[in-house]
């Protein structure tokens, strides 16, 4: 994957398939600590200990359920390549939390990329699921909560092209604000 936002999209697809109704995506970037952390937490069906034990293995995919495949192992490799760490926690019936970190300045760390498109497509492509995106840098925090959007939109569909466009712009502007206007 060329962008971290593609990993995020991919891992979130796991959460969607696990029947989640709320998916929280958290990114913490700290230049002073030279650290970037990505966390995806869902309230989906979760996995039991037996499944979790070797869930990272690319060969763990069960074709009938398609719960996990290459996605997790690709993400783990990306973290480890950048002197970071990777962790997955899950409880059946409660949900799953995937967390990966990267050395911010590591030469192999992929850029976050087009996270605005990722979020716009996730929210519009899954109108029945709520997404919370929280992005923190040394300068501030940007939050996008699909529940708030839906409250404002009332009966207007969140996958309306004009709304999708708004989401994209809002994310772009929001991230600019917490990245020194760049």
């Amino acid at each position, binding site marked *: 994957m060329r962008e971290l936002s593609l990993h995020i999209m991919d891992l979130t697809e796991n959460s969607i398939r696990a029947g989640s109704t709320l998916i929280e995506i958290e990114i913490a970037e700290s230049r002073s600590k030279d650290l970037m952390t990505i966390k995806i937490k869902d309230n989906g069906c979760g996995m039991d200990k037996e499944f979790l034990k070797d869930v990272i293995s690319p060969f763990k995919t069960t074709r009938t359920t398609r719960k996990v495949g290459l996605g997790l192992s690709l993400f783990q490799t990306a973290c480890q390549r950048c002197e970071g760490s990777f962790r997955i926690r899950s409880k059946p019936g409660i949900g799953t939390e995937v967390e990966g970190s990267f050395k911010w300045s590591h030469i192999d760390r992929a850029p976050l990329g087009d996270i605005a*498109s990722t979020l716009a497509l996730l929210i519009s492509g899954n109108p029945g699921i709520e997404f919370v995106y929280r992005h923190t840098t040394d300068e501030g925090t940007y939050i996008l909560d699909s529940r708030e959007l839906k409250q*404002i939109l009332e009966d207007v569909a969140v996958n309306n092209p004009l709304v999708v466009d708004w989401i994209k712009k809002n994310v772009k502007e929001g991230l600019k604000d917490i990245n020194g206007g760049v």
Partner: protein
Amino acid sequence: MKSIEELKKIKEKVKEMTWLRQGDKKATKIVVGMGTCGIAAGARQVMTAIMDELKKRNKTDVIVTQTGCIGFCKYEPLIDVITPDGEKITYVNLTPEMAREIVIKHIINGQAITEWTVKNF
């Protein structure tokens, strides 16, 4: 926040127009493969291009959705175009530019681009 105001304006604007909703039988459906394979091959860019082209051309009776891996990983990014009469055409090995052309030629003008369908691979 100013942009929240913008969203409210969009809401008012949209309410005045008629849009089809998910599950509407009269709508053409575009399904984008969004498994790990699809995403790695560029499915997000393809889906973004489709949404953008539909918006540009004011095409309001098309529903764009996602699906997981369907086993055709080699042919990703791929999309299914499903017309209201149930006919399904699968386009494979797409780029964002090709996706835009499919919207124009197939979705708007009703002419499928047979060279890009799965039969030719």
